[in-house]
């Protein structure tokens, strides 16, 4: 006997708006050339919208660099990958899920050591450092984790204060002042949330607290791992604007790993595409949007 299944209501297609303008999707779900062209036009508009916001004054010196890095666990992850992030710029790393984007961040933080190649932070090769020396290099960097990675057992205040307590000899008043300042930068009300636990906040708020903790120690480089994943479009916009604001106001170097190509095009100065263990493309969003490479066109257009 087969169980009775109620008829499934038609799923609203998120490209229906585009379809109305550009014609229907082909059978099998592959979008027509017209739809894909429209998506690319929208991305180009995104690039144009962000252009002014992205301009920075800096000496553009390389701050974080991967040089011919090879890494394999059970399978190869990275093969001969090179990548440069310059001072004051936002460099994004895009690619399909599971291609090793987050791994590159772990290499920069020296949570992982490459099999071959160099990882340079401020011109210093960090692959040969001891554990304690690596801890010092990490203090130059702030990391914003995908799921915020706030410490469950500590209040929001203790979370943001953590790097300060670990690495500075600031007194309690200074710490509180700094925590308040950083929470305000990420548009959170310190008085309201400081004493709450991470579990009491929404996903978007947790992510912003994660950013506040990442910048608490005034790092030179901020690494973002999927900053917009798992958020609604509104929160995504908030976080993307926040990343741009931090870059402008604090003059930091940002490295963003994401598959949200829209957000990346809006905020990044340079985009690196990671595909098949290599970086086949590394350039500006304009260059990427105008690329004729079939894989890049596929990646931007989506199926």
């Amino acid at each position, binding site marked *: 006997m087969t169980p009775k299944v109620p008829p499934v209501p038609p799923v609203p297609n998120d490209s229906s708006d585009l379809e109305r303008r550009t014609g229907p999707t082909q059978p099998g779900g592959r979008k027509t050339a017209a739809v894909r062209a429209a998506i690319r036009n929208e991305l180009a508009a995104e690039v144009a919208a962000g252009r002014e916001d992205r301009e920075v004054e800096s000496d553009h010196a390389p701050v974080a660099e991967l040089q011919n890095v090879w890494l394999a666990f059970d399978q190869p992850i990275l093969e001969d990958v090179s990548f440069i992030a310059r001072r004051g710029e936002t460099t994004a790393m895009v690619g399909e899920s599971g291609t090793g984007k987050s791994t590159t961040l772990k290499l920069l933080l020296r*949570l992982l050591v490459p099999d071959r190649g160099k990882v340079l932070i401020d011109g210093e090769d960090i692959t040969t450092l001891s554990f304690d020396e690596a*801890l010092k290099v*990490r203090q130059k960097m702030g990391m914003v*984790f995908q799921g915020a*990675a706030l*410490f*469950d057992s500590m209040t929001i205040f203790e979370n943001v204060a953590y*790097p300060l307590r*670990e690495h500075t000899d600031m007194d309690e008043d200074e710490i509180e002042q700094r925590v308040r300042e950083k929470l305000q930068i990420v548009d959170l009300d310190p008085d309201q949330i400081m004493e709450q636990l991470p579990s009491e906040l929404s996903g978007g708020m947790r992510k912003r607290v994660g950013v506040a903790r990442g910048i608490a120690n005034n790092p030179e480089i901020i690494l973002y791992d999927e900053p917009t994943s798992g958020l609604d479009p509104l929160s995504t916009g908030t976080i993307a604007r926040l990343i741009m604001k931090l870059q402008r106001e604090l003059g930091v170097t940002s490295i963003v790993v994401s598959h949200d190509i829209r957000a990346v095009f809006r905020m990044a100065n340079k985009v690196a595409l990671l595909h098949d263990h290599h970086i086949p493309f590394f350039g500006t969003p304009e260059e990427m949007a105008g690329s004729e490479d079939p894989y890049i066109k596929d990646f931007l257009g989506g199926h």
Partner: protein
Amino acid sequence: MPIPNSTVAGTPIPPIELSSFPTRLNDAAKSKVLVIQDYFTLAGKALRFIFSRPFYGQDVIQQMDEIGVKSLGIVLLTGLFTGMVLALQASLQLKAFGATMYVGNLVSASMIRELGPVLAGLMVAGRVGSGIAAELGSMRVTEQIDALNTLGTDPIKKLVTPRVVAALIMLPVLTIINDFVGILGGNIIATVNMGLPSAQYWRTIWEQLATDGFAFRYIPNDFIQGLSKPLVFGAIISITACYFGLGTTGGTEGVGQSTTKTVVSASILILIVDYFITQLLLSVLSYG
């Protein structure tokens, strides 16, 4: 149904190459040795960090509360009923020889030398070991361990060392309580069931300690046995739990697996190591 021998894309699946038996044995042996090496590396680091800055005193106190104070309930119950059943069984056996007045000797020797440390160890392995593994495992899968590293803190120093120190301190304390409550339970049965006066019962307890001999002139051999064991068990429980917790992979399901592995491994290790400590101490200490 025919077994498909090619993938959807049409590329043939390469035949699975079975490596020879010696190769597989070699790989298996290597991975086991690697596990043991990792385990002792973690243990070594955790113990070495006890003596190096920065100290996380607050965390040690918090863990002592978590491991020691909150385990008090189950340890009290375990001790009381073990002592009671010990006296009950002994009374049957001793009655045959008309030697019921020696029930205190039996309860004292069994409780202090063996049952106190081992049962406290097993109960704490179940309650605290699983808790530590689950906590560190969740921290691993939600990237909190990576976050600690990124923020310039060594997770071993911040998370493992305080738990090991707390377990090393609290397990002997819990064992002493367990022993005492167990002997008290024996006292209840001896008095109520067998009509043995309390004074007589407690005198036989001391008698037993004295006949088992003294080390360094004043310390009863039984106390040395009874307190060196929980020290080792404390290390086993905390390090095993931290080892599996920190090594968690595979999301929430992985946390469950780490918890199970911790309780099973720690319990078995306790029982095995208990035998060897006993063997060693019996040959070193001069009994009887």
